[in-house]
């Protein structure tokens, strides 16, 4: 892998000192980037360079660096998680770019996710939505045997697909309305598909949607941009299921 040509790049990076700061793009260059580096390793190189120059490094969220924690974000050249498919930013590799490229790096931009600093946004709104219904109301202990209620393989697999959402917020960032419907619907679907969660499905759908609206997320107009940018391929079929749950619940009111 070492024979590949290393990359020289121009980076246009969003810098914003604090939530109240107006923010602006700064231009940097990095050179000798290995195409086998991950995108965030390239950002590490930039930061090392800035620290050496006595400047403040670019703040960005990241943690597991293997595509599962959902912490990394970044809007890269107009795409949430960058130009590769089915990956998070931390799994994006520099071989997707060419030497001489200019790369524009922005934070998630949405009313629901205010910028904290540089490329870091506040996604606590997702936790607030979870707290009003993203669970099955059982306490620890006193539950039936795991095999007491058989669940069809199809339902279990479908629930698993919905449950693979990592809560990164790419769906919100790529939606022109800033809607959190894909996120909410993934949790509502997972739990509605399983007998354990079915019991409070209506209540859950109502509460989570109400909270989502209250927190300033927009409505869904079925453009499917969320699905296209979701690193985990969560399907908009979940949104249809959420709508069904929500309508049924409202009709019963």
């Amino acid at each position, binding site marked *: *892998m070492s*024979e590949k040509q290393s990359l020289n790049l121009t980076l246009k990076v969003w810098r914003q*000192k604090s939530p109240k700061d107006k923010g602006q793009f700064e231009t940097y260059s990095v050179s000798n980037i*290995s195409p*086998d*580096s*991950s995108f*965030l*390793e390239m950002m*590490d190189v930039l930061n090392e360079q*800035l*620290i*050496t120059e006595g*400047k403040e*490094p670019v*703040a960005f969220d*990241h*943690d*597991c*660096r*293997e595509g*599962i*924690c*959902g*912490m990394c974000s970044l809007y890269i050249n107009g795409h949430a998680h960058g130009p590769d498919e089915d990956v998070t930013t931390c*799994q994006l*590799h520099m071989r997707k770019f060419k030497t001489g490229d200019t790369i524009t790096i922005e934070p998630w931009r949405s009313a629901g996710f205010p910028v904290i600093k540089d490329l870091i946004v506040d*996604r*606590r709104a*997702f*936790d607030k939505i*979870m*707290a*009003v219904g*993203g*669970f*099955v*109301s*059982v*306490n*620890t*202990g006193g*539950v*039936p*045997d*795991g*095999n007491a*209620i*058989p669940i*069809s*393989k199809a339902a*279990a*697999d479908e*629930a698993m697909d919905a*449950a693979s959402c*990592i*809560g990164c917020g790419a769906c919100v960032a790529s939606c022109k309305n800033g809607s959190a419907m894909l996120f909410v619907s993934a949790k509502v679907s*997972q739990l509605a598909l*399983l007998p*354990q969660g079915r019991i409070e499905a209506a209540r859950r759908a109502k509460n989570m949607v109400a909270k989502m609206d209250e927190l300033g997320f927009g409505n869904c107009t079925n453009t499917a941009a969320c699905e296209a940018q979701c690193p985990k391929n969560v399907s908009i079929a979940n949104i249809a299921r959420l709508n069904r749950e929500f309508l049924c619940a409202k009709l019963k009111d």
Partner: protein
Amino acid sequence: MALENRIPEGQLAQKWQNYKNHQKLVNPANKRKLDVIVVGSGLAGGAAAASLGELGFNVKCFAYQDSPRRAHSIAAQGGINAAKNYQNDGDSVFRLFYDTVKGGDYRAREANVYRLAEVSNSIIDQCVAQGVPFARDYGGLLDNRSFGGAQVSRTFYAKGQTGQQLLLGAYSALSRQIGKGTVKMFTRTEMMDIVVIDGKCRGIVSRNLVTGEIEAHFGHAVVIATGGYGNVYFLSTNAMGSNGSAAWKAYKKGAYFANPCYVQIHPTCIPVHGEFQSKLTLMSESLRNDGRIWAPKRKEDAEAIRAGKLKPENIADEDRDFYLERRYPAFGNLVPRDVASRAAKERCDAGYGVESGEAVYLDFKYAIERLGRDVVEARYGNLFQMYEKITDQNPYETPMMIYPAIHYTMGGIWVDYELQTTIPGLFAAGEANFSDHGANRLGASALMQGLADGYFVLPYTLQNYLAGELHTPRMNVAEGEFAKVVGDVNAHVAKLMNVKGKKSVDYFHKKLGKVMWEKVGMARNEAGLKEAIEEIVAIRKEFWADVRIPGSANEMNTELEKANRVADFLELGELMARDALIREESCGGHFREEHQTEEGEAKRDDANFAYVGAWEYKGENAEPELHKEPLVFEECKLVQRNYK
């Protein structure tokens, strides 16, 4: 202070029930008067915070990430063990217990491990009730897979994302309590120190990572569930933010630190590609079921591959050295993690490594010939895709390259049977404690232990402690010891900011990691460990003279966060080397080159080292003191592990 492990009386199988029958409880009206602080929101911390909130205690939970759902438990792939015996293949609580003690190379406490095996079944029930979408077969019942170190199929899984699903289950339970107001969540908040008053832990001091504010929090009890310290090596499979600081601060306030030298090195990780590499990615242990591990038989072939003149698929079968099958015909490619890792290192050290020289092959050619590509794809497709995204190589056509990497730390804060540390009121759970895995952890047991501690152990044992704290009023955190510790933390932060040197935090972290990997890594010896101690002391000195942290302490400052953690790693690394130096035997993940058989296998010394080594901090310029907790085996017979 003598170590009291507080193991309950009675037969092994009755101990936990006896404990629960006789422990103290707190009545519902009093629970809301008691405050519990949980540091960490992973499987152990998240499950504990949720369960304690459900019981009615006032809980404060802390995480350095932006949401409790980000904790690194989320990255576990393979599965979770439980003794359900749904497969009718002869599993039992006793067998899970026995396998775990044996897999840990007889360096764990029997009573703790037995309890772990006992509650394992309840964990599965709990997770199913929460809506965790475990894999099921066509009859609708739960499916199992097999894992290393066991002769039964007892591993429950959710695709290759079991850790994610279990964590999201705990996060859901935690979210429910946050909604109800029993748990107050502090995200992007890092614990900076604990507060000890009259010998008891009474709270913590934290730093708000967004504003930089240093705050004190009172708790009648504190739980540390902050995971392991694998990042002391810089490169590991841990998350970038995973750190040992909470455990280390507790150690410096009087909690003993047990078996710091026990580190698990996972044999199948994607090799290092270059100097800017920031972390290592694991390829699931399950791949060893069908992949064959090899290195070139001839050195010139290895050299030609390294020079880019030869491709591995062009090496004939007879020129491939399937070294695990050669050395361990009975277990072949499925030897335990520690054995497989050392064998890979042996080949590479001898000059047979590929790529950079530190890689061997994991080849699916034979499995594809035997089973067909479709079957291999159905079993491992997601892992192959992940491998291709990272390396740009297609493992269906060319063998995967792998090399061992730091994965898990068995050592941790010393705890008694109640998971209480040597500081009354301070508890430790999950990977942060040392308790259940001995010198080597079996696959699919980390998730089991985290959830066991959080859901089914702490809600009991913590209550036993809290029953004695009913008359302790909530303390004013603006004064006394709380104010003093806040002052100490502010001074520590200022000290870091004021170094104003020239080198980045990563520079020191990488330098430390290199020493740790080379001298306190897969194979250790006396001379190397002594050098490591000296080198770490020197790096630490250089750090405090030359580290540069741009920006200020009163705002979000990611370099300051890193510096605070690395400062602790620079001390913890030294203790690991000391512990490894004193343990003159080879056991589990700890391999001392002086202690091996003629064939190069690990040689344990039960006569002299069947103990838990618990270190007591004695001050900045004093040597730590080692305390020994003897390990008494009543049910397990100590034998040398043999995989030949």
